[in-house]
């Protein structure tokens, strides 16, 4: 088969790390090739080089057999390479078609030929089965559809090779299935697709071949049909990984968190949490499943005092925490792993030891009077680094110099070290690699076994299913149903997450959108 892309001996050095070390990668025409690796392994770096965002120190890139020099994304687009980033780059109050033609608008005299644009977008959209209305406004359509707009954008620019960076991170199970279909359609048209991911399940279902990168170097390229999840995990992490979470049956203790009729607004002042009722007991992990944007973030913020609630009742550990300050809520025994570790969880330019006491910096022995005791702080930080296996040269480096997984480990370490009665973990493993996920899961289960209440909010259904003892599904700001783990299946949860009910037969799911 024809090689559309060949990268030979690519080496990229960032200050202090070798992001890509003599990497070889090739892509065949009409194949879906997964680039698999842990976070910080260098997959995105490699693709950014291909897309012209970075320049390699060494190595050559061939497109359809010709040596090329790609120094800007424009070069890449001219060569038929398109990239869809993890974070979409769309103008929110523009229509789909307006976003797609941005920068290469078809003109009629001095005016933009909007009719032509709409027509063309519709054509491509139908060709690949996207089902997208060109005149819809971006902010009105779902995240999954926005992603399709991004793909369309690349196709409209004549992309023959599509790079999708972590495309499934924001999608529901149903949307992931649809994306799969789209990728198959693209293949049929002879397009080649590169998927960057660290999710093994998707690799198996979506790809033809897999190239695995570990610490900047390729550890293998295998055909998907000839491999297994376990083999891939091993190639990716470099050791045997335990993919299933082992846990004993839960021993329920007293009620820790009780929420009654909670209501809260989002930033725009629209209701985000709507009459929410929930009780969490000690010794259990309660998972909140739901599609992004159904009020989970606001709910967690209200619980932890970062957002003012509108009405309702929250009791933690028999103490009223409704509308109280974050400090008070922390003091009644709440640990919080925030969903955005760089915005909330860490002060990036603070050193690790300064970060390791954020929230407990006023407590003994870290401070006395107003004077910080940095000796104790460092000791505490070193303990966390050792106990939680945080990979860092020392506690003196800034938090921003750590990889995402290690940043998250630091936060988890800090929150667990607060010895909380209730541990709220919001997206605790988002964007992390298998190794770190395994570890963080283990620690969460440990907390549960120690009799703590763990409230797990996650968009990853697999994570919810793996960890939870009970699963609450959040839809439109409400808890629509709570299932026992034994009763829950991916399908049932999928129905609930999309706003359906379990009274109907699951076959009626199709109409639920």
């Amino acid at each position, binding site marked *: 088969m024809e090689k559309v892309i060949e990268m030979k001996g690519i080496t990229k050095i960032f200050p202090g790390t070798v992001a890509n070390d003599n990497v070889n990668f090739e892509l065949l025409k009409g194949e879906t090739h997964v680039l698999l690796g842990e976070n910080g392994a260098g997959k995105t770096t490699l693709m950014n080089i291909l897309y012209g965002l970075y320049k390699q120190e060494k190595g050559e890139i061939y497109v359809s057999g010709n040596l090329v020099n790609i120094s800007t994304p424009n070069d890449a687009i001219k060569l038929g390479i398109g990239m869809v980033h993890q974070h979409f780059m769309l103008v929110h109050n523009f229509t789909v078609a307006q976003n797609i033609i941005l920068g290469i608008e078809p003109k009629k005299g001095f005016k933009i030929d909007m009719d032509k644009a709409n027509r063309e977008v519709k054509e491509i959209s139908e060709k690949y089965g996207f089902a997208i209305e060109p005149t819809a406004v971006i902010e009105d359509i779902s995240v999954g559809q926005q992603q399709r707009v991004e793909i369309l954008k690349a196709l409209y620019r004549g992309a023959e090779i599509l790079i999708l960076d972590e495309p499934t991170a924001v999608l529901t199970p149903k949307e992931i299935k649809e994306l799969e279909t789209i990728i198959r359609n693209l293949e049929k048209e002879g397009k080649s697709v590169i998927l960057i991911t660290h999710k093994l399940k998707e690799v198996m279902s979506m790809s033809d071949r897999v190239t695995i990168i570990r610490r900047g170097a390729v550890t293998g390229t295998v055909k998907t049909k000839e491999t297994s999840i376990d083999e891939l995990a091993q190639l990716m992490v470099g050791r045997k990984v335990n993919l299933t979470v082992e846990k004993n049956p839960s021993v329920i203790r007293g009620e820790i968190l009780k929420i009654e009729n909670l209501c809260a607004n989002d930033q725009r002042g629209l209701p985000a949490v709507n009459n929410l009722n929930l009780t969490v007991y000690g010794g259990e992990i309660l998972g909140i499943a739901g599609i992004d944007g159904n009020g989970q973030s606001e709910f967690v913020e209200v619980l932890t005092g970062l957002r003012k609630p509108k009405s309702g009742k929250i009791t933690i550990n028999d103490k009223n925490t409704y509308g109280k300050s974050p400090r008070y809520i922390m003091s009644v025994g709440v640990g919080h792993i925030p969903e955005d570790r760089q915005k909330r969880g860490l002060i*990036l330019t603070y050193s690790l030891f300064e970060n390791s006491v954020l929230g407990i910096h006023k407590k003994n022995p870290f401070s006395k009077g107003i004077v910080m005791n940095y000796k104790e702080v460092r000791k505490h930080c070193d303990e966390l680094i050792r106990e939680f296996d945080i990979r860092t040269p020392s506690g003196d480096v800034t938090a921003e110099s750590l990889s*995402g997984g290690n940043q998250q480990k630091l936060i988890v370490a800090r929150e667990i070290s607060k010895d909380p009665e209730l541990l709220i973990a919001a997206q605790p493993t988002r964007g992390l690699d298998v190794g770190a996920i395994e570890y963080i899961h283990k620690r969460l289960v440990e907390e549960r076994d120690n009799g703590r209440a763990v409230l797990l909010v996650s968009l990853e259904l697999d994570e919810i299913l793996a960890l939870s003892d009970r699963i609450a599904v959040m839809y439109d700001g409400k808890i629509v149903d709570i299932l026992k783990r034994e009763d829950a299946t991916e399908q049932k949860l999928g129905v609930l997450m999309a706003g359906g009910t379990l009274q109907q037969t699951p076959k009626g799911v199709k109409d639920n959108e």
Partner: protein
Amino acid sequence: MSKLEEKNNEFINIARNTLKTLAFPLFSIVISIFVAVFFVMWAKGYSIFQYFSALGDLFGLIFKGGFGNTRVTFVTLSEVTPLIFTGVANAVAFKCGLFNIGVAGQFILGMVAAAIVGTVPGLNPIIHTILMILAGFIAGGIWGAIPGYLKAKVGTHEVINTIMMNYISMALANFIILRTAFGVAGKSSTPDIQKSAQLHRFVTGSGANISIFLAIVVAIFIFWLLWKTIVGYEIRAVGINPHAAEYGGINIAKNIILAMALSGAIAGVGGATHVAGVLHNVKDFMSLPSYGFDGIAVALLAKSNPIGCIASALLFGTLNSSSRTLQLNGIPKEIVYLIQAIIIIFVATDYIVKYFSEKKKKGAFTNE
């Protein structure tokens, strides 16, 4: 052995980091002088080949004007003292992510408050000077806390409020001096402060006085406060990432008000010591004292490090006090402002470069 090595490494690291932080300010100073020399050549009618003699002239005159003899040295010291105060004041605000343009106004109120307290007769000199400084501290602190409060509770931007309050403070000071019994009738100034309120001068006839030690102590104290205490931990956290600070149970509003009050208080103390040591009375104000805005430059050059402010205040103070000598020797004194301006432009560029490189880095990291 390994302990020793560790210590050694630590020392090398510290040295390297210090060099790294110092590199850009030093670079900008060098560039600014490089450029300024051309203007010296122009003013003196030198040809292009006489670059180095022009450089020599400039350096020689700045040194002569700044430290050439005891008299000018003391003038320089009395210039440096208020700059340390206003520089540190700005640095505190910067560290909390705030821009206190109102240092000039806080300085004025510190001066007026001190001048009023200074006229009280019959006090022990030590108590009297302490009271005066305390008066400046409170007046400046309140004047800084107001825009801090407005920022924290109402969300109005501190830059706008402090600029406006600069003019209010000037008008208020002039009102007190010209229209109330605190001023001397017909003299448009306050009466001289009591002997007991005057700070000890190094030599008679020069404004240089012991308040420079106070300035240095304040700078060191603020350094300690920012890097070794809870107060500093919280102020800096709010300055870097208010979201994370809030998450960590840090009261953002409280810290903004505190940082502004502290910034104002330091400026106020600067004003108070200026009256107690140098001026001995306060004349009505035609314009805002330049120390306030120079303080911004001092803090910028010092990268908001209070101890660095001492060095950068020394530089700016020397430049200011040498301007007369330059003028007398045929070099326009504007050269001093030129040097200062270029330094600031370069230091600001450093901030901009950092801002963009951080942005770029973030873009790269989120996709991982």
